[in-house]
């Protein structure tokens, strides 16, 4: 049996997920990219309450592979942006100070 649902849904802010939601089912958010725009990707506990939450969030269900691809696309863009974000005369250590470490690739559960 699957442990998780995967989907995309725009985080609308306050109330998008509640403390009760968090106690009721597993929920983890990631930044994805659909080729045009950044998109919020959600991994949701595979329960009735989790499925209802994704539906009421006007979410679009994805397969795990599709969700992972969206996250990988965002990671790639973030890593490229990090690589291209240079300041003349800046050392690599200084760049880490300014931007933080180069983003890694995230593997969703």
């Amino acid at each position, binding site marked *: 049996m699957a442990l998780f649902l995967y989907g995309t849904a725009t*985080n609308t*802010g306050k109330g998008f*997920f509640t*403390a009760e939601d*968090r106690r009721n089912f597993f929920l*983890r*958010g*990631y930044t994805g990219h659909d080729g045009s725009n950044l998109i919020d990707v959600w991994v949701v506990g595979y329960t009735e309450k989790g499925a209802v939450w994704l539906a009421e969030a006007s979410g679009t269900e994805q397969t795990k592979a599709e969700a992972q691809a969206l996250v990988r696309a965002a990671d790639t863009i973030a890593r490229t942006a990090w690589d291209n974000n240079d300041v003349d005369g800046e050392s690599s*250590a200084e760049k880490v100070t300014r931007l*933080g470490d180069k983003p890694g690739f995230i593997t969703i559960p």
Partner: protein
Amino acid sequence: MTAYKALKGKKIKFLASDPPAAAGEGQVWYNGIDYKTSVKVEAWAAGGNLPAAGQSAAGFGTQTAAVSAGGTPPGSFGLKTFEYDGSSWTAGNNMVRATGSPYTSAYGSGSGTLTAGWAAGGGYPTANNLVENYDGTNWTASAVIPATRGGGISNGPQTAGLYFGGTTGAPPRTALVNSFHYDGEAWTGGGSLNTARTNAGGSGVTGSQTAALCFAGNTPGQTNKTEEYDGTSWSEVTNFPRTASYVGYSGSQTDALAFSGYTDPGNAAVTTTGYDGTSWSSRPNMAAGRLFYHSNSGTANNALAWSGEGLSNSTEEFSGTATLKVITDS
């Protein structure tokens, strides 16, 4: 329930009416109908989104009256101030520090309340020693930190604040041990951390000049060392459960919350950990992992976290609420 006395060495109290949930936390009683207790129920929930994605703003205030000051990217944040009312963020008046580098307000830290806050240090490529006080409407330049600092922590109220750790802000950006006391108008030297560090976590707005906490951070490598400050000196205490840096933080020396940050460079964790003044314990995870540069505020029971990497215009609110429960044998 006859086993209760054998287990605990005392009888269950009879109370004609239930006490307030907060007062009854950890106790067991009988009210003539039910056996009851009070437990803390905790979780992170979504808060209002910021107008733009960003990071490295200085945060202070409470979960329902917070301030985000400065940050990056310069266009969306720069010298800008945003206030949070528990539901949404609204723009306030800009910080007053002189421009020059577009990053002059980034990587600083803040403390205090929405109507009596302060923000100190930060800046890139060279850190500054600038300090500003906030009154809920306007920023006012205040006395500068005795030395330039980036990546340190501002802790405590505006009139009895403490700034500790960080770096000189100029290459090679060596991590530092120094603490400075702030009275809202002037600075004096404080005790030295045992482990020099920057990008650490600590007590924040509810910390004080005589009871502060510092944990994790870069030395430059990541550390799990934890220290407590008594107003004069720092002492090592129980290590943070993971080596980490850029961890979010809220609360005090005896009731603190640590969340997310980097455990592995480049990959943010969602882990949340509580500290009771003696030991660390696991708490409910955040929904999204982030890298924090002090974009956090509130207490250990009502924390606020925003920006950072991940879903980076999003906000999360942590709430720990004492709740009455009926005890059953199932």
